[in-house]
């Protein structure tokens, strides 16, 4: 048998195409001591000019880049990220996916996202640990039950799964919950079985790998300092590594949209707020749905490592500090032990904060701006994670075709001046209350 003939070295490619991940590959690499794995995405250094520059290598930026390449064949694209990938909000959320909204346009948008989550791993050839374990929202009063039932009916009219369940079913699903609390007894729940969780880091890595393989440059440690605008048209971005010219610039920097927009003298209907999240010490499986409390702001799921991942509402005043303050931590902990008294003895392992774009109606923005060539993907409030696939798909559509994707047309910036806000909870223009 001939010794394997060394193949002529192929001309230096801009990037090595990662080979497919599969069980066979895993076995083969395992036999080789796992020394054969290559980088998941190429470490690109930026070129001086691109057709599209995406600012922000978070979930939405990477998803937009992937969809631009995969669906529109636009690969002259750079994603600029100021740190390493995955350390922004894509790695700071509580990983919940669901489409149980009330406004029909929102239901359609988030349902598109949920359907994309369902095929994400096949599409990206990446294990993102998509787990459709169900999301269960509890209700504690008759008025709340009517509201949730109305929401469930609204969803079912649009062909989305939702069901109301009684206390017996809640007890079966969550044996840990105290249903007979004297003040807030649980009357039932609103269940979306297709909701669940996704491993958030894997979402960033999977999209980055797929986008990079398709030819997108993913540039880490490149901070965008400002937007360059000439005669009302965006011409590029000033970065820590110099100027990069672009025909289209897409902002995907939720939390800091206002800061970058201000460099182009653009004011947005956004305030920045901090949302905290918490992880407990790991315990044996105790909770196999995503559970939300109806008598306070609290949501919890159990990670595969065993830690309970939970959070509550935003701290409630403008901030860019990626940390939280104690009053909200106390409120979340109080809600946690009211609903799940057994948690009282659990220790919190980690606590952190992420900065959110809170919009004036609580709904996101995927839109052109009054600066030609500048596209905004932002205003995700604290629901950006679940929207990553649909946010990227619809933003890519807007960049490629110049018109909004039908599923995201209601998220245009013009809705505020036109009086067509998408205010899910009917709160009004008070971001700190959304």
């Amino acid at each position: 048998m001939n010794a394997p003939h060394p193949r002529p070295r192929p001309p230096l490619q801009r990037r090595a195409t990662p080979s497919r991940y599969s069980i066979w590959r895993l076995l083969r690499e395992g036999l080789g001591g796992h020394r054969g794995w290559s980088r998941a995405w190429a470490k690109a250094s930026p070129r001086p000019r691109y057709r599209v520059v995406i600012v922000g290598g978070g979930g939405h930026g990477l998803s937009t880049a992937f969809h631009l390449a995969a669906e529109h064949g636009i690969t002259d694209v750079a994603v600029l990220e100021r740190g390493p990938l995955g350390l922004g909000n894509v790695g700071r959320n509580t990983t919940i996916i669901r489409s149980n909204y009330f406004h029909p346009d929102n239901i359609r948008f988030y349902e598109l996202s949920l359907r994309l989550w369902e095929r994400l791993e096949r599409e990206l050839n990446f294990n993102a640990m998509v787990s459709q374990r169900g999301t269960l929202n509890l209700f504690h009063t008759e008025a709340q039950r009517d509201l949730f039932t109305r929401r469930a009916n609204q969803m079912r009219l649009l062909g989305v799964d939702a069901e109301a369940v009684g206390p017996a079913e809640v007890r079966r699903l969550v044996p840990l919950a105290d249903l007979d609390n004297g003040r807030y007894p649980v009357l039932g729940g609103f269940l979306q079985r297709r909701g669940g969780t996704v491993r958030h880091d894997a979402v960033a890595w999977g999209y980055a790998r797929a986008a990079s393989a398709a030819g997108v440059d993913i540039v880490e440690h490149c901070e965008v300092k400002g937007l360059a605008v000439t005669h009302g048209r965006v011409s590029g971005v000033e970065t820590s590594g110099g100027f990069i010219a672009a025909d289209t610039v897409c902002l995907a920097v939720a939390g800091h949209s206002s800061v970058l927009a201000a460099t182009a003298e653009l004011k947005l209907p956004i305030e920045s707020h901090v949302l905290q999240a918490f992880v407990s010490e790991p315990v044996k499986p105790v909770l196999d749905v995503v559970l939300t409390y109806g008598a306070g702001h609290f949501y919890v799921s159990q990670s595969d490592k065993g830690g309970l991942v939970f959070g509550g509402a935003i701290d409630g005043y403008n901030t860019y500090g990626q940390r939280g303050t104690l009053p909200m931590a106390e409120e979340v902990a109080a809600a946690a032990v009211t609903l799940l008294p057994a948690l009282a003895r659990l220790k919190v392992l980690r606590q952190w904060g992420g900065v959110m774009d809170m919009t004036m109606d609580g709904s996101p923005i995927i839109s052109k701006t009054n600066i030609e060539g500048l596209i905004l993907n932002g205003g995700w409030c604290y629901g950006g994670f679940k929207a990553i696939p649909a946010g990227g798909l619809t933003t890519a559509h807007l960049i490629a075709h110049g018109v909004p994707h039908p599923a995201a047309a209601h998220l245009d910036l013009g809705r505020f001046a036109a009086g067509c806000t998408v205010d899910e909870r009917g709160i009004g223009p008070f971001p700190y209350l959304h």
Partner: protein
Amino acid sequence: MLRIPCPWCGLRDESEFRYRGDATRRRPAAEAGIDAFNAYVYERDNPRDWHSEWWLHVAGCRRLLKVVRHTLTHEIRSVEPGADPQGAERSR
């Protein structure tokens, strides 16, 4: 945890206060037009810098305070009695 020096009650914890948003906005004249009202109702500077904002001391003197606070460090530079109820948001 913020501690806000209320001119009437002294240094108090943030949990005694209710946030009421950006204190720099001024209601335009009635005939100012849609763009002026859109800017007033919806658009915000949202600076990563010093921010002038309303706080209502709900669990204290129930007065409206105008606080200048840094949105990154949370340092409070000045607190003065809020004399301009016209600019404050009166929701719930």
